[in-house]
Each structure stands twice: as C-alpha cells, then as structure tokens.
C-alpha cells in the first residue's frame, strides 16, 4: 500500500483539482482518513459493547424507553445516563452518526479503490521491462554474474532459471543487450481491491436485507394449531408436536418442533426444526427460538355457545413472581382474559400445580372484573361465563426469517478471505534482469528486486538468485569444458 494520503499535500494542482469536487476527492483518497475512521468506528463499537444497548422495539416505545432509562440511571447514575443518552450511546448501532461513519468509510474505500486502480493496473500490465544501470546498482536486492557467452545465450539461461523458480518471464532484446522482467502472483495486486470492496458488498447485503428482508423473531405456534405466517406470504405453519429433552445431568439436550408448512392451506413441506437445523421453504426459513407451555381453555356462555376453545400460549412472564402468563380476548364480551400458570420448579402459593389462574379485564377500560383459580378439567362459572382449563400443552417459538441479502453477505465474506490470502500469502514479486555484453566479449548478468527491507522478500530473492545462479554456473561449466577441449 502506498501513501496516497501524502498526495493531498502536493502543491501544484490542476484547475479541476482546485475546485471543490477535486478537493473532496483528494480528501477521500487519504489512507490517514481511513485510519481515523477505522479508529472512530472501533471506539463506537467498543462503546456499544461496554454499555447496555436498548432494543429497537423498546427505543421506539416512549413509555418503555423511559422505563429503560430509569433502570440505566440506577446502573450508571443520573447525570452520566443523561450524557450517554444525549450522544445516543445506548443505541450506538442504529444511530445516524454511526451510519454516517460507516458511510464515510465506504466512500473512502470506493474513492481509494478508483484512485489506485490505474496505478496498480499499470504495475500488472504491461510492466516496464528495461531498467537503467543505476536501478540495478541501487536496488535493495541485487546480484551480478559474468558469463563467457553472448548476451542472448546468457539471457536464455537466466530465463530458464527464472522459469524454474516459477516466475513468468518477458524479454526485450537489442544487439548485445537483453532485458528481462519476471514476476509471479501478479493478480494478487488486485487482492487489496477484492478485500476492500468486499466490505462495500457486505454493506450492500445488509441494505438489501433491510429493504426486502422480512422477519418475525417471535412467531408462536401451539401444538395442533395452524397459524398464518404473514410477512407478505400465503404460508401457514402447523405445529404437530414439540419435544424438549434433557440430559441426566440437567442441561437441555434437544428442542425440536415437528412442523407442517402449508401454502394456501395445502401442505407443501413437513419437517423437524431443531436449534441448529432450520426448515426452509420458498426463501422463508423457520428457526427454533424458544418454547413454553400452553393452557387449553374453553369458554362458553350459559346457554352453551362456545366463545373460545383452544390453547393459550403462556409466552410471557409476570413481572412479580415470574409466572408464565398469556392472554386471549373475548371480543363479543369486550373482555381480555389473562391466564397465569404456576411458577416452575417450586411450590407456588398463588397458583398450585395443576391449576391455572385467570384474571378477567374489561378490554375497553382495562379494569379488573374478576380473578380466580381454575382446577384442571372442571368447569367453573366466572363472571357469568363457563370457563374450563382442559389440559396443559406446548407451544413453539419460531424465528421466521426471509433475508435476500444474506447470500450477498456470504459471497462478500468469501471475497474478503480470498483477497486477504492473495494479499498476505501470495504477494506479487517482481524481478528484473539485464544481460549486457562487455567490450571483452563477456556478458554481465545483473539481477535486481525491489521491496521493503523484509526477511520474506530477502528470502525470496535469495531463492531466485540461487536458482538462476545454479543455471548460470552449470552453463559456465559446460562452456569451460568445451573451451578446455579446444585447448587440448
């Protein structure tokens, strides 16, 4: 990577460059800007890791957010909370300023890519073959040999050595002087673009997901019930059975839901969803997320008309007592019924095992009408209606996701790794050689390689030098033998 940032300080500028657009372009060509942005984003992500982050659903509800802030004040103190809230540090990843930083870095990456494209292209195709004598003398890595043969013959030997070292060789000859250029992994020069642009592609993937993605992280289906998925699809899901298994030691072993997926009421797919094996249909994926108990309830009027008959998922917890709780409404009666189950794992004085507590509220006013416990299997009259708690069951909590951006993310991820591997493990190596005939008829062979003072480059030069040197020596030995023969 060259220091493109320093270009901004070159005093002579063209007309275009002095214009605002040109200045902005220059501003974004800076690696220094990239570093500042990376460090700023790092600090922001770090803040987001250290500080409690408010869930988007809570943030969008003023009452819940106020409550959340009160709790934050308890943790961080009143004044610090105000400051943190002012800078939106409880919501780092969804704030405008965080997106602005990401946006600036994206522009930075794109501008740097465009800015460097030409230079790197020129390094790769077509390279400069003939270099000056001074270049060979001053190159950080260089070597010199003298051969008793014509320049063309010596060049052929050098070329052979370079090919053995797995270099690609180009030559440019004139009378008594042959120039050679050799390189390997030249396409790795583009590794930097591949890995940087993969970041832009990841961002594009998140945008695609944000626009066309649909999800319901809390899709609850009780056993035996079919529920419409919604989210713009005509799919529905039926839970045949939910199973949770535990190891003898206690920790959970398996959570699985046997599901049927229906399209317009027709069964289209059937399968078991586990935590690490989702079920997919038509771009929609169903993941096992949570589960819980249901209470199968029936409600009838005095004359026997059924108002409700089905399982009520107890998917929430009461704030006090941590009891499982769920609700259903009786629209015709303007009532909302809350069903509270017994606390698990210990005896519960309010809701004994085998019972369900119901609290009946008026839907419009929210006033508590009545509350009582129901024992399993017995019909009880509550507020003029016949309530029965039939049995307990299970529900599954699925995370339903459709994200067309996710494949873009995977392609980008693969590109990032490919780019990094090219950049770090297959570096572009370039070597120049010159074979020049001297007045005495001998040929001077010079090798040169440029690069940082780095043991890897130096080792690579050593490897190539030995390879070429070996070819030259064996060639010289042949030559000597032939000459020796003549003398005798």
């Amino acid at each position: 990577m060259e220091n493109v940032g320093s270009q901004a300080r070159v005093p002579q500028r063209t007309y275009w460059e002095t214009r605002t657009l040109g200045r902005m372009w220059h501003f974004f060509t800076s690696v220094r800007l990239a570093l500042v942005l990376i460090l700023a984003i790092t600090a922001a992500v770090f803040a987001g890791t250290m500080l409690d982050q408010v869930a988007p659903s809570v943030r969008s509800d003023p009452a819940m957010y106020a409550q959340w802030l009160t709790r934050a004040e308890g943790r961080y103190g009143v004044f610090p909370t105000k400051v943190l809230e002012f800078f939106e540090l409880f919501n780092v990843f969804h704030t405008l300023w965080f997106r602005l930083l990401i946006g600036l870095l994206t522009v930075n990456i794109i501008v740097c890519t465009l800015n460097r494209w030409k230079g790197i292209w020129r390094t790769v195709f077509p390279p400069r073959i003939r270099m000056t004598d001074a270049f060979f003398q001053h190159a950080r890595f260089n070597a010199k040999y003298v051969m008793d043969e014509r320049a063309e013959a010596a060049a052929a030997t050098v070329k052979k050595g370079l090919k053995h070292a797995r270099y690609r060789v180009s030559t440019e000859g004139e009378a008594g002087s042959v120039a050679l250029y050799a390189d390997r992994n030249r396409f790795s020069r583009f590794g930097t673009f591949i890995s940087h642009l993969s970041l832009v592609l990841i961002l594009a993937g998140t945008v695609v997901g944000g626009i066309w993605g649909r999800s319901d992280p809390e899709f609850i289906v009780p056993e035996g019930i079919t529920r419409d998925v919604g989210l713009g699809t005509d799919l529905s899901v039926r839970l045949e059975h939910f199973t949770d298994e535990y190891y003898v030691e206690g920790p959970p072993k398996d959570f699985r839901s046997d599901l049927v997926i229906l399209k317009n009421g027709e069964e289209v797919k059937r399968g078991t969803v586990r935590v690490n094996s989702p079920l997919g249909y038509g771009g929609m994926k169903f993941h096992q997320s949570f589960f819980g108990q249901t209470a199968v309830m029936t409600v009838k009027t005095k004359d026997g008309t059924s108002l409700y008959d089905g399982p009520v998922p107890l998917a929430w917890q009461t704030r006090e007592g941590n009891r499982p709780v769920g609700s259903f409404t009786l629209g015709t009666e303007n009532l909302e019924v809350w069903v509270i189950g017994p606390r698990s794992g210990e005896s519960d004085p309010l809701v004994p095992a085998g019972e369900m507590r119901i609290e009946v509220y008026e839907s419009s006013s929210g006033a508590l009408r009545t509350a009582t416990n129901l024992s399993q299997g017995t019909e009880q009259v509550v507020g003029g209606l016949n309530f029965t708690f039939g049995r307990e069951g299970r529900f599954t909590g699925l995370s339903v996701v459709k994200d067309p951006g996710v494949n873009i993310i995977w392609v980008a991820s693969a590109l990032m790794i490919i780019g990094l591997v090219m950049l770090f493990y297959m570096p572009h190596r370039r070597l120049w050689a010159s074979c020049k005939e001297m007045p005495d008829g001998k040929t001077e062979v010079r090798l040169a390689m440029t690069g940082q003072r780095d043991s890897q480059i130096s080792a690579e030069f050593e490897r190539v030098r030995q390879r070429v040197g070996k070819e030259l020596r064996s060639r010289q030995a042949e030559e000597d033998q032939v000459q020796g023969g003549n003398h005798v």
Partner: protein
Amino acid sequence: MFEVSQYTFVAAMVALAAGLALYLVNVFGPRGVRSLSFNTGGTQETDSFGSAMKTAGRYGSILSVNAFGFLTASIIARWIAAGHGPFSNMYEFSVAFAWGAMGIYLYFESQYHARSLALLVLPIALGILIYATTVPDDIQPLVPALQQDLLLTIHVAAAVVAYGAFAVGFGAAILFLVQRKKGMGWLPERTTLDEIGYRSVMIGFPMMALTIILGAIWADIAWGRYWSWDPKETAALVTLLMYGGYLHARVIRGWRGERSAYLLLLGFAATAFTYYGNYFLGGLHSYG
C-alpha cells in the same frame, strides 16, 4: 481418555514452566562474565557461560515443543473422551487459546530465532493454563445451541489461531518499545520486531475475519440472524477493526514504528477482552 487428557495437561504446564525458566536463563543469564573463577582460564569461562546460555535456550525450545505436544495430546484425548470438539466451555477454550499462542510462538521462533519473545508469549500461555485450572474441567454434554460439531470446531480453531498470533504480535510490540536505543543486544533489532509484529497480524487478521464469518454463518443457521450485536461478536469486531487500523497505520508516515506498536498493544487488549468478555458481558456466547 479423560484422565489422559488431565495428565497431559499437567505435563504441558510443567514443561511450559520449565521451558520458560530456561528461556529466562537464555536471555538474562550471565553473558561474558569473567570475574567468576572456574578451573580453566578466563576466556574459556566466558565461552562456557555463553554456551551454557545457548544450551539453556535450546532446552527451553525443546521443552516448549514438548509442552505444545502435551497440550495437543490433551486436546485430542479430551476430544475422544467428549465425542465432540472440546471447545464448548471456558476450560476447553482456555486450553485451546494457550495451544494457539504456543503454536504460533514456536512457528515464529523457528523463523526468527528470537527467543526473547518467549518471555512475553509463554507467560501468557502459562497464565491462561493456570486460569484453566481454576474453572470446572468436567466434560459437559452439548446444549442444543452448540450441537454443530463442524462449526464449533473450526469457528473456535480459527479464533485460537488468531488470538495466538495476536499474543505473539503483542510480545513483539512490547519488545519493540523496550528496544528504544540501539545496542540492547539481548533483544532482536527493531526492524525484526516490527516484521514479527506485522507477520503475526498477517496470520491473525484473516483468521479473526474467518472467525467472525464462521460465527455469522453459525448464527444464521441457529438463529436466522447472521449478526445480532451480541457482546462477544461486537468485541471480536472491535479486535478486527483494531488490527485493520494497524495494517493501515503501518503504511502512513508518522504512524510507522512506535505508534503502530501501540496499536498492537491495544489490539491485544481487545483480544483479551473478546476472550474473557462474555464472562461479564453475558449475551449469546455465555455458555459457561
């Protein structure tokens, strides 16, 4: 097999501690001291001390290679005993981290012969192993979220190689900053230390990126969300960004050298935080 794993774990700790002691002798041992009298003449005394130091260094390396071998054996034995990749709790992850740090260190020792690096990297590995003895080491069955043997193994393997590389980069950066003046003969030259730091990031950075990508793939399979801003995942991103900053700083005038070395220190702080962070941050990675 579980017992084999425990025995080899202890053997690794002993070999590592002894190796570390020998490295200390190698780096700080008497060098060219002439005043101590031996049976033979002064010049030979120097030589005998010099060679004793070299011998200490060589045996230090041999012991470290042994420690690495024992640790490898311990992981394999536990793998067989558990029936899945032993990377599911803090004990197992700590052993793997120490394994990564030692493996990467030994690779760099073979490349640069800079044994002074051992004085910083091996105590980190030893410290992690000592920490591992304080957490429960019984084999626990896998909870549903972790029942993905392939991803569990390669996600964690990539992470420990990255962490190990960053530990070596940290060591190189400290030595770089200590080597302020020229002539600190017991330390490698600054250019060498800078190169070791850079090459450690060349290993660590792609591995960290791979760790995050594999984590995202796994999260997408298990939860349907490739990214959740989970604390451990965010901490890993902080680490990756920090080393991304280092890679760019290294080509900016005024940021080469010391400032870049400080970034390596910050990067390793982020690494340590990522490794340990799930303990006090909670989130999706808190398995125990």
